[in-house]
């Protein structure tokens, strides 16, 4: 109730009364303090030192400025999110000093205004509740931010997982001398989004020979794979081939991760392998290509009805042979005795579901791109370095097994209606996780977030995994704040009735 209410109170025909109402209402809100009210002028003289300090911080103008600043800053955040994505908005707006600063000001303002109103009266109840409620919510958020866990976990159907992936990114370097056993030599949290490395200011990792330098960061790139010849003899072979008949025309790359490690391309009814040929076929249509020296490959064709080779021979780059099924011709387009994969990157202005980020690595004078959540091998004369730039994965200490995954669809359509995961957890047993029905276990909560499909069939379920130590405080704060709002209306009514009664008794 404020001065604008006067026309209604005209029925009471009491100018004084309405004035009292206004003052009372304002004090109830903590907007004007007792000192503004002549009868309580004594308070004015008892101002404590605390109050003197807090006075300027408790001003209403500051409150309005803080509220408007939060509004403005978060509004900018939503536009950043619309232009880029939620991660960019978080990095550029919500998780910045500006945001924390304003929130800090809000907290100071709220505390100061409460100190300023000391000693509290009964009519302050709603004001105290609402403000303390907001402070509790803020405190809860700080707890969540500091100690909470918020990540995601992908579990394939029939598989299990105990690692949660979070938004933090790490750069990890492993080294190996034999190519089999790796030891971690560096693990470092990096935030390339906000502090990208540059040519002038690279991130340097010392190595036994020379140094590994990260000299560039690309935020949004669409990668496409490319295979190039490698100078190192520790890399495997690469083969570009074509499978062709009147219906089929496929061109593919096969690259071995290490020399002699089998690489496979599966075409469904037939498989093509690059690597050592086994003595017997496995009962499928298979072609094995084994590198022989620098420029030729030995090929062996198995048919599904026999263990014995159907055909063998030697083929060179540009050469071809017929494996003897469905008139198919197999042609070797390119053969590299030592090959490695690299990426062609197409930079974009905005992120799309196809973009990822990448860093440029320089080692021994050679430049290579390393994609986010991918790895890169750097070969030296003596050994090999393995470099990863990836989201941090946290072990939750127990595995979550996805036993079954079902998608209900709206009748006669492919539109998902609901999806649920049947999961098993040690010591807990089996349960179902679905939208709006999470699993709570050992302080963690598992939510059904989404699922992955391949050829129209679900292959994996994605959970959001979360631990929130600030939850209780946030809920309590919400409750206290809501109570404050309710009290506001309740006490107003009481004040009004009391005054009316007083009026009538006169």
């Amino acid at each position: 109730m404020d001065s604008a209410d006067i026309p209604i109170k005209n029925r009471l025909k009491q100018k004084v009364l309405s004035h009292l109402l206004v003052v009372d209402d304002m004090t109830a809100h903590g907007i004007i303090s007792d000192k503004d009210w002549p009868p309580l002028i004594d308070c004015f003289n008892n101002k404590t030192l605390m109050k003197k300090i807090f006075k300027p911080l408790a001003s209403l103008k500051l409150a309005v400025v803080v509220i408007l600043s939060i509004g403005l800053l978060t509004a900018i955040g939503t536009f950043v999110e619309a232009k880029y994505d939620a991660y960019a908005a978080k990095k550029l707006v919500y998780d910045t000093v500006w945001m924390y600063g304003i929130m800090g000001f809000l907290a100071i303002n709220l505390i100061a205004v409460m100190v300023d109103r000391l000693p509290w009266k009964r009519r302050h109840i709603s004001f105290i509740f609402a403000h303390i409620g907001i402070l509790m919510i803020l405190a809860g958020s700080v707890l969540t931010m500091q100690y909470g866990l918020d990540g995601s976990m992908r579990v394939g159907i029939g598989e299990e997982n105990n690692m949660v992936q979070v938004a933090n990114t790490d750069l990890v370097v492993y080294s190996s001398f034999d190519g089999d056993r790796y030891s971690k030599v560096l693990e470092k949290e990096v935030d390339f989004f906000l502090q990208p490395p540059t040519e002038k200011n690279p991130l340097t990792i010392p190595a036994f020979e020379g140094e590994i330098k990260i000299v560039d960061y690309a935020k949004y790139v669409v990668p496409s794979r490319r295979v190039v010849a490698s100078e190192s003899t520790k890399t495997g072979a690469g083969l570009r081939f074509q499978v062709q008949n009147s219906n089929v025309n496929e061109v593919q790359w096969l690259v071995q991760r290490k020399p002699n490690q089998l690489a496979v391309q599966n075409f469904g009814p037939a498989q093509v392998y690059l690597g050592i040929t086994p003595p017997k076929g496995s009962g499928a249509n298979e072609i094995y290509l084994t590198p022989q020296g620098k420029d030729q490959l030995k090929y062996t064709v198995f048919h599904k009805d026999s263990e014995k080779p159907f055909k063998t021979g030697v083929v060179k780059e540009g050469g071809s042979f017929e494996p003897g099924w469905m008139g198919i011709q197999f042609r070797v387009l390119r053969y590299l005795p030592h090959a490695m994969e690299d990426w062609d990157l197409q930079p974009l202005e905005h992120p799309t579901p196809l973009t990822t980020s990448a860093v440029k690595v320089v080692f021994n004078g050679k430049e290579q791109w390393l994609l986010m959540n991918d790895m890169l091998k750097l070969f030296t004369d003596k050994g090999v370095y393995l470099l990863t730039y990836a989201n941090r994965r946290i072990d939750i200490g127990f595995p979550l097994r996805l036993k079954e995954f079902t998608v209900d669809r709206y009748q006669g359509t492919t539109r998902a209606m609901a999806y649920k995961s049947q999961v098993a957890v040690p010591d807990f047993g089996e349960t179902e996780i679905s939208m709006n029905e999470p699993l709570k276990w050992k302080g963690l909560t598992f939510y059904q977030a989404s699922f992955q499909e391949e050829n129209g069939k679900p292959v994996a379920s994605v959970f959001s995994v979360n631990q929130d130590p600030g939850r209780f405080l946030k809920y309590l704060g919400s409750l206290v704040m809501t109570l404050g709002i309710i009290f506001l209306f309740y006490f107003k009514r009481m004040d009004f009735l009391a005054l009316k009664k007083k009026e009538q008794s006169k």
Partner: protein
Amino acid sequence: MTIMRRITLLILSLSFLSLGLQAEAKTGEAIRYLPIQDAGRIKPFDSFSRETLEVVYGKTKYEGRKAHEIILTWMLSPSAWQSRKIFEVRNFQVLEALNLSKDQRYFSSDELFGTDRFTLLRQELQSKRETKEKLNPYFQALQRLENQFFVFSEVASGRMLKLIPPVEGDGWISVADFNEAQQASFLELTKKFVALIGVVAQGANSADLDKAGSDLDTAVGQFREVAKANNVAAYSVDTHINTEVHYNDFHPFRWAYIVYLLASILLLLVWTLNKDQLMKPAWFLMILGFLIHTYGFGLRTYLMGRPPVTNMYETVVWVSWGTILFSVILEKIYKFRFILLAGSLVGLVCLIVADMAPVVLDPSLQPLEPVLRSNYWLTIHVMTITISYAAFFLAFGLGDLGLIYYLRGEEKNREKIRALVTAIYRSMQIGVMFLAPGIILGGIWADYSWGRFWGWDPKETWALIALLGYLAVLHARLGGLVKDFGMIACAIVTFSLVIMAWYGVNFVLGAGLHSYGFGAGGIEYVSGFVAVHLLFVIYVYVYRRGKVAKLS
């Protein structure tokens, strides 16, 4: 149509209501009640036809003919429609790409799809889709065109007319896949339909019409038996079907706004000419409109089995309902009269907009996204938040009236302005009282189903910004920083934040987790609406400053 006739019609419709929903259909229209599976639910053929015609033509009638007749003839003789202008294309860029005139809005299938250009555009759209980037208005328009083409050809081929339930499973059988007996029965139906159309075209007398009509109804009945024989349980949907056809026919929200229009006229007379004796009939009309509005809302709730607050159209209907409710309650308490006027005007505008812009505000009944399938949360979170918009909308309407008071003379209207500011203040308080808990409830739901209480998602952020805006206004008012004019200006200016939270996030930003409510279109109108009001505030401000300067 004259107003008198509309009132008579309204009274007739209301008496029809009292007869219940199971009223007999007109002869020849049994076909409208035929169950069909489409877009994930079973609906009457009537709804299917209206929605399909809407997609292609942008309206639910074509040259005065009802949708179900049009849709059936598409299938019976697609070639006859080749040269008819039934495809609505509004995007100039698309028209340019197709080499078509920009003066027209409707085009024939020959014009649009007869050339290679359409194929090229489809490829362009497909490659754009493969990049998974957000589609801009041009590609959205292309997508609509592709959808129009798809829908028309699917109807023409009969693949979209899924009229018979399967013996097993849940995908219904389309006309294209009928077995022989089913085909025979459907053929009979179409023959009778063609006969009826012929009779209508000849302008024959009513007896012939009746005969042809009842023949068609009999054929429909026989077809229903054939369909039912396949799967009795899946075909037992009559109550819903009848209710839905009634909902389509009665069009409750249109009646509601007609009644609100009448109420607004009376209230304007009361307001401008002080015709106090009109207050009673105005109240009567407001309540009547509100009842029809509530009835329509109830029908929709029944049909969908959930509170209808999940897309823009539904929230517009719900918000206008809330505005009327709050205005009635506040009017009852304060008896200022203009509260009811503001409420009826806001309700009127909302419902007219909802009814006039079906392409932007989709009125069809759509199944829900998985995450929204929780009636409990949907009710308490979405309804609380959107009802707060209703209170702010009322404050906005009151703000407009307040500006008019200032133009009509600040001095002589001082009392009224003060009363008006009281009403604005109350509306804002009601709004805050719903919005703050609504946001918290949203946080709790998000915590419960996504695992975080607050994630700076654009929708929740803008709801918070709107709340902060109104909190700033209320605090500034209590602190004496904002006077009467300031309150009136704030009621209008701050509502822009609500428009951003309500419409802007879904239609302008189009980002975030609340992606189930996204849409396109209408940006120019909405921003125009906001701009006009902001200019109005500035104009009155300048006007008032000028006056004050003159006085001093």
